[in-house]
């Protein structure tokens, strides 16, 4: 009869650890797939969502206006001509001034929640303790050999340990998700898409402008051009960079009902985009030190810190 193996056998422990790690990765992959499906469904709903009435009103006014104009010509009526002219003009104006793409901010939150839930689950399951660090990319126009092309993408590194250790350039260039030395994960920042949009509005890359230019131009682009917030302030404060956002479109992501944890360390898409912009402009790593959200979610204050490589 074969005696049962003792439980504290190092080989079996190692096997068990490997198995559990595999199971965790599989579980994460399944969760990720499910969340991606959910995200797709929400995106489709967003497209189907509320149609803006300005288009319908425009068509109705235009039709009545054209009929009135035709009637004025037939009856030689000045009154009908004025009415027709007015209705045609306003109909055409409503069609012209209608935004091409419009979604309500609640749908914007809904699509963002799945990404944060995934990050939360990953950090919780992997028991990672490090703070997310925004690593600046190389400028787009900079020449890099083929095997280092991955360095042109903005990434956020979350370390397994609560110490600031950065992965090597070679490891980051491989575009891997799990990094081994130091142990951690590399993810795309939530504000990655938004930072490209900000650059497009600014008509310049953040790598090409100075920090002062960034401080002066970012509020205009965020408040006036993209209307992502009602007020936006950015200024240096005791070796930190303080950002105050009033009435952000992503404010609901901070609500306690959502219960998102990673949003305070990695930032909402807007504060993440600001972190990306700071990292690109300074060429240094950036981390979110702390954030304060008012109880009514109207004001969000975020403090950033630049780290030397």
């Amino acid at each position, binding site marked *: 009869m074969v005696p049962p193996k003792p439980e504290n056998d190092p080989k079996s422990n190692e096997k068990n650890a490997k198995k559990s790690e595999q199971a965790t990765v599989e579980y994460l992959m399944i969760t990720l797939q499910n969340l991606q499906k959910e995200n797709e469904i929400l995106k489709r709903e967003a497209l189907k969502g509320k149609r803006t009435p300005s288009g319908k009103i425009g068509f109705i006014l235009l039709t009545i206006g054209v009929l009135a104009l035709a009637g*004025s010509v*037939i009856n030689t009526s000045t009154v009908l001509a004025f009415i027709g002219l007015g209705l045609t003009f306003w109909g055409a104006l409503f069609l012209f*001034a209608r935004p091409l793409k419009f979604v309500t901010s609640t749908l914007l939150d809904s699509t963002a929640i799945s990404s944060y839930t995934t990050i939360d689950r990953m950090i919780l399951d992997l028991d990672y303790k490090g703070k997310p660090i925004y690593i600046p990319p190389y400028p787009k126009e900079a020449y890099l050999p083929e095997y280092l092309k991955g360095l042109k993408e903005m990434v956020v590194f979350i370390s397994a340990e609560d110490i600031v250790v950065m992965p090597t350039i070679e490891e980051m260039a491989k575009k891997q998700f799990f990094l081994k030395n130091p142990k951690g994960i590399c993810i795309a920042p939530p504000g990655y898409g938004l930072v490209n949009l900000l650059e497009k509005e600014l008509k310049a890359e953040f790598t090409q402008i100075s920090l002062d230019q960034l401080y002066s131009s970012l509020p205009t682009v965020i408040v006036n051009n993209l209307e992502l917030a009602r007020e936006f302030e950015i200024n240096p404060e005791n070796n930190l960079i303080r950002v105050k956002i009033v009435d952000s479109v992503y404010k609901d992501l901070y609500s306690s009902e959502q219960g998102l944890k990673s949003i305070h360390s990695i930032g909402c898409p807007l504060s993440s985009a600001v972190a990306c912009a700071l990292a690109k402009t300074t060429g240094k790593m950036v981390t979110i030190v702390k954030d304060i959200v008012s109880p009514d979610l109207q004001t969000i204050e975020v403090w950033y810190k630049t780290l030397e490589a």
Partner: protein
Amino acid sequence: MKYGIKLWKLDLVYFPLSIWDVSVWIAFMAIILLITSELLAPYSNNLGDFVIDKKRLRLAALVLGVAFTVTVLLHIIMPT
């Protein structure tokens, strides 16, 4: 055999407004749109259930303003 010209009664259809009527109308519309776009400037594009692109509204207002100026210049150049 008689030769002659057959006369037809023609009902001419024409637009009942003269260029000066249209000019006054453009002036009114330009003023309304300019005031509206100025008043809407501090608000977002979403006005309740109604969504409008403020930049385009302002553009339309400016185009109408220019159109009115052109009609006034025409009035000065060709007074009759």
